[in-house]
């Protein structure tokens, strides 16, 4: 399948830069996959999304169903229980699912990109069997513990400690803002094994959940994506076997950064889904609502809004697809991924803001989903790299390109 995708995209990816415009449409496989996810989101997620949001309820049944479909482990090879598809397929899946329910989208994204991603890339064969296969079915989900109360963007300043005691690592410290943690069965934790080396002293560890020495803080009461749990992970004298280190000692920061490079495409896809749902809502309303004797879609003010909304989404979508295709072709994609995440998250906040405007008063009440899209969109500019960090990443890459 991967080869087929490359064949179809062929010259486009091979020559990288300008050829995306040659892509009239997605390969058939991706279209089928996208349609399946869209059908699932429409039938199973969209009808319950509002209630999940009200109840702050983890969609366990739906996550299991998505696991059975292969969506919880899109890139994981079939030998380990995954779907064995490429990253473009994954981005399409997350976008379509997020269009139905943004919380479900982030649950799928975190499991795929932030949990399975680093283990797939840096894990030993043994670790892959133990920590990947059970997490492909939707029965279990994983999470990613990098941020701390004292540092989010400043990931290199991790203060969670990992000390070797005999044949065990002992972790202590607190992690903050961990998505999925109340529903997770394992986590990738970043802790420093040598504070003096600063970011080069950080290592990655695999910790099962629940586990002695690991406890969870209270569930955060969030503005949006309320069906996914977010809380602190508190490590107090948490003992894990030496074999639970992921990658080499001191490799943690590199693992985190590379993981986030990919993870931000998942979030870009989620943002696109939210934005698309908001546009769907606004455009539908523009047909139905009449004012001044005609549907409001006839008014230029509304038309200009809809045009700007659609433009923002389409641009961000193409950036996302391009970054995903570069990644699939094993080409550098850091700059493009940052651009995609930045564009998509800003599109999501812009589009959902305008969608409420188009709906007027109806946009402000819970009877219509516009307010939920507005609340869900906001986080996409913050997690997995704030918009400010994305700009720094892009700028650094540009400056490197123009290096004298």
């Amino acid at each position, binding site marked *: 399948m991967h080869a087929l995708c490359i064949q179809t995209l062929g010259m486009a990816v091979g020559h990288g830069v300008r050829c995306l415009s040659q892509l009239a*449409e997605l390969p*058939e*496989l991706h*279209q089928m*996959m996208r349609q399946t996810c869209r059908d*699932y989101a429409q039938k199973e997620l969209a009808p319950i999304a509002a209630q999940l949001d009200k109840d702050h309820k983890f969609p366990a049944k739906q996550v299991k169903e998505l696991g059975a*479909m*292969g*969506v919880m482990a899109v890139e994981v090879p079939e030998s380990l229980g995954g779907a064995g598809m490429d990253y473009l397929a994954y981005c399409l*899946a997350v976008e379509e699912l997020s269009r139905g329910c943004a919380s479900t989208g982030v649950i799928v994204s975190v499991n795929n990109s932030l949990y399975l991603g680093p283990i797939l890339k840096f894990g030993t064969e043994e670790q892959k069997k133990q920590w990947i296969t059970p997490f492909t079915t939707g029965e279990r989900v994983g999470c990613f513990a990098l941020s701390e109360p004292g540092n989010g963007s400043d990931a290199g300043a991790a203060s969670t400690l990992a000390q070797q005691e005999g044949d065990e690592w002992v972790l202590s410290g607190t992690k903050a803002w961990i998505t999925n943690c109340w529903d997770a069965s394992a986590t990738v934790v970043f802790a420093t094994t040598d504070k003096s080396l600063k970011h080069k002293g950080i290592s990655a560890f695999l910790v099962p959940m629940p586990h002695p020495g690991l406890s969870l803080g209270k569930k955060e009461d969030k503005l949006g994506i309320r069906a996914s749990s977010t809380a602190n992970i508190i490590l107090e004298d948490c003992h894990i076997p030496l074999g639970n280190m992921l990658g080499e000692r001191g490799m943690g920061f590199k693992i985190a950064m590379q993981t986030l490079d990919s993870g931000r495409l998942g979030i870009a896809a989620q943002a696109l889904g939210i934005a698309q749902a908001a546009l769907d809502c606004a455009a539908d309303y523009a047909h139905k609502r009449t004012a001044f004797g005609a549907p409001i879609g006839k008014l230029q003010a509304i038309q200009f809004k809809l045009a700007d909304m659609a433009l923002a989404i389409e641009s961000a979508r193409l950036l996302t697809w391009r970054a995903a295709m570069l990644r699939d072709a094993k080409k550098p994609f850091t700059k493009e991924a940052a651009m995609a995440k930045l564009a998509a998250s800003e599109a999501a906040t812009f589009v959902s803001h305008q969608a409420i405007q188009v709906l007027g008063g109806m946009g402000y009440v819970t009877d219509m989903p516009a307010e939920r899209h507005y609340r869900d969109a906001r986080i996409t500019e913050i997690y997995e790299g704030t918009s400010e960090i994305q700009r720094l990443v892009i700028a650094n890459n540009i400056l490197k390109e123009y290096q004298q």
Partner: protein
Amino acid sequence: MHRSSEVKHVASYLNTRGCECFGQPCESHCPVLTDRTIHVQLKTFIKIRVKPDRTGVVTDGVKHSMNPFCEIAVEEAIKLKEKKLVKEVVAVSCGPQQVQETIRTALAMGADRGIHVEVSGKDYETLGPLQVSKIFAALAKKEQADLIILGKQAIDDDCNQTGQMTAALLDWPQGTFASEMTLEADKLKVVREVDGGLETIKIKLPAVVTADLRLNTPRYATLPNIMKAKKKKIANVKPADLGVDVCSRLEVLKVDEPPQRQAGVKVETVDDLVGKLKEAGRV
């Protein structure tokens, strides 16, 4: 975004080989042929418009997908295969190039191979249950099918004829409006949803079954199955190859939208009501 397609009739077959152990429980070497009709499903929130020349409805630009009853039929066929009561599931569709998409969806659900009976242009516009059932009957003989499962009706034309006609042409028994079907040796027990309630019948194979709503809940294609579907074969056949003439014996005179709902009139007494009805010539 890919263009929406014009899919009118898609039928899926399950293929079967001659069963030597006639009278014995059908094991994996006795495949069952299930046939199913998939029709265009015009999304319910899309406003259906009558064509300006009033010969039909506008289908251009309307997203087409598998008929819901046909999805149920495919699901049933695949379940039979999973229970090892059936050897091979063949999905069949009659229509233009775009029906291949729908066949692929059936393949992604788990059908083994597809047959695309090419009917396009004017022939396709006039394709109706009689021609489709002739095609199915011919294919059933060619593929030596044992069981044909179709959706009970298509939700665009609501004909509810193809299954019955196919059975008649083949001189096979039929179990229509099935809400339950169980394979017992060489007989098929079918529970039918009829106006009076539920009717249970036993029919001998080979047979035709049409699927009703409560037969099962169709599965979503899994990503690995979508990938496998790419490798499965879809054979191309023309109606002429099967000796079928798709010329229609029906001529659509005109198609109109349902009349606009008129405002009602409120009356005070029953006498008034009767009086008004008499005035309007209704009684």
